[in-house]
């Protein structure tokens, strides 16, 4: 128990410091965003594209299965003009959003209750430590049996995977309330409800946001996985279709699309994290020092 709390804590510390440095980089970057950095970044992307173009052209890899960058980008340009493509993006994001929402609500409620009651914390510890590491893809066969390729099968897998990310963070966050602050609140006669709103919630919020950011990334991975291996309609299924049709530029184009989706989700959730925690030491820290 004790060691687990410390490892969880240190993980969290690492993640919080990451937020801090991210925020610092952001601010410093805005102030002296050197043209050099941007130029190098662009050079990196261009270099990657050129390498990609040359590998199949020079015959280092088989051009049948490894189309050139230009072919893939042309295919991507075609995709973007196709309404069905956007419908598939919508289907994937619907699963992702619904799954993330259900997981977050469940995890926050359960995490808060269990985290605040020491008896429940101790009693559920082994159960949680056993259920948490089960890879959610192991549940794919079960999901297929129960729901076929309706959206519920994908949701089962997405919710299972992202639930633990949020739950563990909330569990630690709720327990992390500063002892002095807690005693002060008590001696000032704050009611239980007011203590939860004014003390527990602000303490747990950074943890919750970290959990939410991790869960958002995991939920996307499993939404795509479910589409690929269960066959729910969406981008993942399109990848499998394109692959069985031997349409490799389409496969690569869709891989890029999923990567861009992941990137956007990462950036959005990092921005949300900074926004909601603008009052917090880890984000504010560098200005004060």
């Amino acid at each position, binding site marked *: 128990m004790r060691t687990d709390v410390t490892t969880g804590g240190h993980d969290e510390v690492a993640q919080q410091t990451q937020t801090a440095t991210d925020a610092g980089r952001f601010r410093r970057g805005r102030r002296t965003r050197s043209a050099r950095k941007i130029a190098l970044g662009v050079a990196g992307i261009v270099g990657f594209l050129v390498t990609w173009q040359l590998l199949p052209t020079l015959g280092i890899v088989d051009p049948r299965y490894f189309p050139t960058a230009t072919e893939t980008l042309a295919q991507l340009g075609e995709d973007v003009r196709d309404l069905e493509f956007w419908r598939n993006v919508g289907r994937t994001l619907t699963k992702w959003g619904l799954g993330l929402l259900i997981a977050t609500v469940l995890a926050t409620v359960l995490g808060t209750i269990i985290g605040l009651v020491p008896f429940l914390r101790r009693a559920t510890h*082994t159960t949680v*430590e056993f259920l948490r590491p089960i890879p959610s893809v192991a549940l794919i066969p079960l999901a297929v049996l129960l729901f076929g390729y309706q959206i519920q099968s994908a949701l089962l897998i997405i919710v299972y995977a992202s639930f633990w990310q949020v739950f563990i963070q909330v569990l630690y966050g709720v327990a992390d309330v500063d002892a002095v602050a807690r005693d002060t609140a008590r001696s000032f006669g704050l009611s239980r409800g007011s203590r939860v709103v004014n003390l527990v919630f602000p303490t747990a919020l950074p943890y919750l946001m970290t959990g939410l950011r991790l869960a958002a990334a995991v939920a*996307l991975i499993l939404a795509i996985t479910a589409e690929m291996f269960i066959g729910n309609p969406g981008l993942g299924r399109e990848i499998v279709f394109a692959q069985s049709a031997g349409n490799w530029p389409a496969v690569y184009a869709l891989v890029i699309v999923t990567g861009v989706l*992941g990137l956007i989700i990462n950036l959005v959730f990092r921005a949300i994290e900074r926004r909601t925690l603008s009052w917090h030491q880890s984000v504010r820290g560098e200005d004060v020092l």
Partner: protein
Amino acid sequence: MTLYTSTVVTPRRPARVWAKIGENTLYAIGLPVILVVLWGIWATVAPAQFFPSPVELIEAFVETWIGPAFFTDVLPSLARLGIGILVSIAVGIAAGTLIGLNRWLRDLLEPMLEFFRAVPPPVLLPIVVVLMGPTDAMKVVVIVVGSVWPILLNTIEGVRSTDSVMTETARSFAVSRSERLRFLVLPAASPRIMAGVRQSLSIALILMVISELGYSSSGLGFQIVYFQRNYLIAEMWSGILLLGLIGVLLAAIFGFVERRVLRWYHGIKEVERA
């Protein structure tokens, strides 16, 4: 002083220690036992088609996995998982240190790395399969290309944020480059690296299963889907249970290694908290 306290405390200690151990075990196994009993009752009162009773599950588990299947399906899967994880760690730390120490290299590669990290690893499977064929090496490569990113990016971050006072001190004391790496940069980055490894482990396990789903004729992932397609429900659940056990085992090994590697770090945290 100490004499008094020790004489007062000693006689009570054994009893309390045993009570404590008893209490802890009760807490540890209480809820799982209750859940399994409830599950058993539920399965006998209202048998559901897709949910076997705990007894059936255990029988299926012993029958399916203890025996030749352990060597033909479980061990190869575990070996691929282990090799994949070790290669990811080695590549991630080596490349991460290199990129983290060179500013221009970092600026050059950062946008691409951010993109590759964001690509959901399972989509790489069709590509790796067609380029390499359905071999063992393919499965290991799938695990590596999926799970190397958290380690790589965390190592870059960790190396980058090495305390500058310490770096400069080491430099003024003319500590050689390799020694600086060994005694300053890597230890300073190790908490971050371990956080990255922790994320990678779960991705690697997912990819181990996925790499065996569609393009394989053996392995754990293949077996589970085979059982499901043939409506061998208890056997399918036993596979899920086995994957759960592997997950727990991985988490335990990681916890052990992490405590060893980061002992100094937890020590510092403890002192800071006290």
